[in-house]
């Protein structure tokens, strides 16, 4: 993109000011400086996001969705770097406008030049329509859409509609990689593949019926046809509302998947990480990265902080699985149950907070299907700001009050961790299931350092 002289000067000033701020914040250890520099940069040059991102040689990859953004972005980055490309990536997860600008500024020289081959930006679902016109991404990955923090955002179908509107304005060479098992996102793909400016659309999804769930979870949003509103018919459900669906009334049905899930291993544990892997693989294959490189990145993948991350604490192995909403908690406890099947004396630690990043309304835990998990036995230690709400949810999951998991309530987080660690057998893994702020707290105790 050509930048005229005046813009170049203004951009230079904005970059200089913002970068000075970053230095100051870090020198005086005032924080991680993951958002403020962007705020200042935008003040000094409103088009800064566009001016920076359009210098990225092969364009920006946007990663969107309720769950899985951080893990998918990290895998994309690993693959591209293994293939020798220079990548700019908002790895700290700052995914609102000012966080995106800050990320790009980091890699920008004082004269306003940004040298990178690819930009990988995970973007908050509500910010997508706002940043797409500026970022003009070459790739948009639509991972999933679930019911999330109820005090923050509204309705899932409004979000899909707004995504569609923003993507439709992009050039025809834009590639949309969308979840073909998610009715709303599959429909989004089908719509964007037609019209005035048809996009190239790739669908990822599973073709492994042996992974079907026994029944559709309670916390499901999109089981109605996005085209005519009729209840969809499912041959099977893989996760939440994602599965093999068909509309009995109109001609809406699944599109052919661009990838055969059976041919690919996955990163980390859980069906949800299978989806994250497939989204990354589909994107990388369309860029033209070779299979051996992708496989290499998958097998050497190291989890992002708190996302199925493994750490050692007091000689025991601990796995931290961030959980944010009914869909992610359903999938997390499902993955843990699968890991636990081998041994019976499993120990888990569940942490429920109600601070702003967690969502202040914790009633969603009652939309999670905790029954199987609790009735499978073992020990569940509970803590967090809302320890008793979580404990009540688990207690009410018991078919019989005298059986099921042993539930231990500890108000104090440190005490809860120590209790859980003590109860974990040397050959077992302690699974920690925290909400966002609890994840930061628990990680600080386990690793002895703060991340944000």
């Amino acid at each position, binding site marked *: 993109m050509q930048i005229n002289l005046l813009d170049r000067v203004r951009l230079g000033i904005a970059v200089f000011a913002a970068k000075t701020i970053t230095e100051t914040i870090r020198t005086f250890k005032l924080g991680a400086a993951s958002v403020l520099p962007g705020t200042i940069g935008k003040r000094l040059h409103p088009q800064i996001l566009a001016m920076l991102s359009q210098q990225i040689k092969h364009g920006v990859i946007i990663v969107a969705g309720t769950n899985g953004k951080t893990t998918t972005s990290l895998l994309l980055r690993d693959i591209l770097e293994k293939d020798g490309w220079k990548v700019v990536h908002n790895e700290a997860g700052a995914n609102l406008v000012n966080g995106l600008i800050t990320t790009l500024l980091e890699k920008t020289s004082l004269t306003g030049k940004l040298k990178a081959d690819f930009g990988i930006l995970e973007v908050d679902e509500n910010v997508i329509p706002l940043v797409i016109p500026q970022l003009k991404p070459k790739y948009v990955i639509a991972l999933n859409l679930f*019911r999330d923090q*109820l*005090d923050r955002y*509204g*309705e899932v*179908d409004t979000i899909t509609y707004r995504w569609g509107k923003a993507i439709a304005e992009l050039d025809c060479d834009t590639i949309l990689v969308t979840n073909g098992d998610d009715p709303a996102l599959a429909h989004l793909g089908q719509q964007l593949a037609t019209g005035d400016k048809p996009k190239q659309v790739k669908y990822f999804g599973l073709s492994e019926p042996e992974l079907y769930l026994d029944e559709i979870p*309670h916390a*499901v949003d999109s*089981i109605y046809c996005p085209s005519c509103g009729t209840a969809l018919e499912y041959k099977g459900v893989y996760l939440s509302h994602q599965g093999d669906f068909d509309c009995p009334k109109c001609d809406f049905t699944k599109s052919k998947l661009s990838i055969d899930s059976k041919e690919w291993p996955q990163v980390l544990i859980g069906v949800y990480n299978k989806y994250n892997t497939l989204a990354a693989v589909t994107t990388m294959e369309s860029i033209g990265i070779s299979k051996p490189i992708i496989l290499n990145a998958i097998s050497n993948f190291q989890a992002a902080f708190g996302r199925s991350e493994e750490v050692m604490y007091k000689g025991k192995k601990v796995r931290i699985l961030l959980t944010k909403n009914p869909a992610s908690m359903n999938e997390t406890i499902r993955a843990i149950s699968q890991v636990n099947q081998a041994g019976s004396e499993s120990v888990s630690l569940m942490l429920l907070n109600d601070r702003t990043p967690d969502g*202040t*309304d*914790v*009633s*969603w*835990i*009652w*939309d999670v299907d905790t029954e199987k998990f609790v009735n499978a036995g073992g020990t569940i230690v509970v803590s967090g700001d809302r*320890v*008793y*709400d979580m*404990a*009540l*949810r688990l*207690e*009410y999951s*018991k078919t019989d*009050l005298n059986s099921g998991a042993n539930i231990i*309530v500890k*108000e104090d987080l440190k005490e809860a961790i120590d209790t859980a660690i003590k109860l974990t057998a040397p050959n077992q893994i302690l699974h920690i299931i925290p909400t966002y702020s609890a994840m930061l707290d628990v990680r600080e105790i386990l690793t002895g350092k703060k991340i944000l």
Partner: protein
Amino acid sequence: MTLELKIGWLYPTLMSTYGDRGNVIALQQRAQWRGIKVEVIPFDVNSHPDSIHQIDMMAGGGAQDRQQEIVMRDLAGAKAEAIKAKLDAGAPGVFTCGSPQLLGRFYEPGLGERIEGMGIIDLESKHPGIDVPRCTGNVVFEITAKRLAAELTELLGGKKPIIVGFENHGGRTYLGPNAEALGTVIKGFGNNATDGTEGAFYCNAIATYSHGPLIPKNPFIADWMIKTALQDKYQTEINLAPLDDSLADRARAAMLKRLEISD
């Protein structure tokens, strides 16, 4: 004799966005743990109005505006009459979060047109506009509806019936002269953030914005509903075996402490 209890669950898929299933779970479990046979019967778009006759109590939860509109349109006519007849006959009901709006005369959403309610309770609800902040936060109120307060106080061994919950609503509800408030707000917004009332009480139906969900932290509501429903059904005095509610007690105490309210 094994006692049997049929719980009608209003629109479980359309009206269950805010964890209100927790009320149904808690009602069901508290009955089952005492050896009562429970059947949960969904009442939804496909249900025949007459199917409401078989149930002993009902529960309804919250929805987003669009889903609520579908429900309110579906309820018009025969279904509304069936529900009114059931409540008038004394069936206990718990209507939380958005569902009290269904029982009122109308609801005006933030966007779009006024939707008629069932007109069972003399109340109306209006959304002040999508740019006006929602009423979101922890809520504590005392149940003051006369007969209910008396019966709950007896059940609680003389203690005042204080509800600890969470509210998260865009709409504001205003009670008409023929409606009785469920309670008086101690902390939080309540019906409309201005007049200090919370919810409404009609026959044996409890309507409240409080979710979180309502019953697990206020289990005496469940016990009162189960007792009331079974006494009416079997026409005999029912005394429920006590359950260990220490976890709920601690949950309540923790929240009251956080909000600096003395119990």
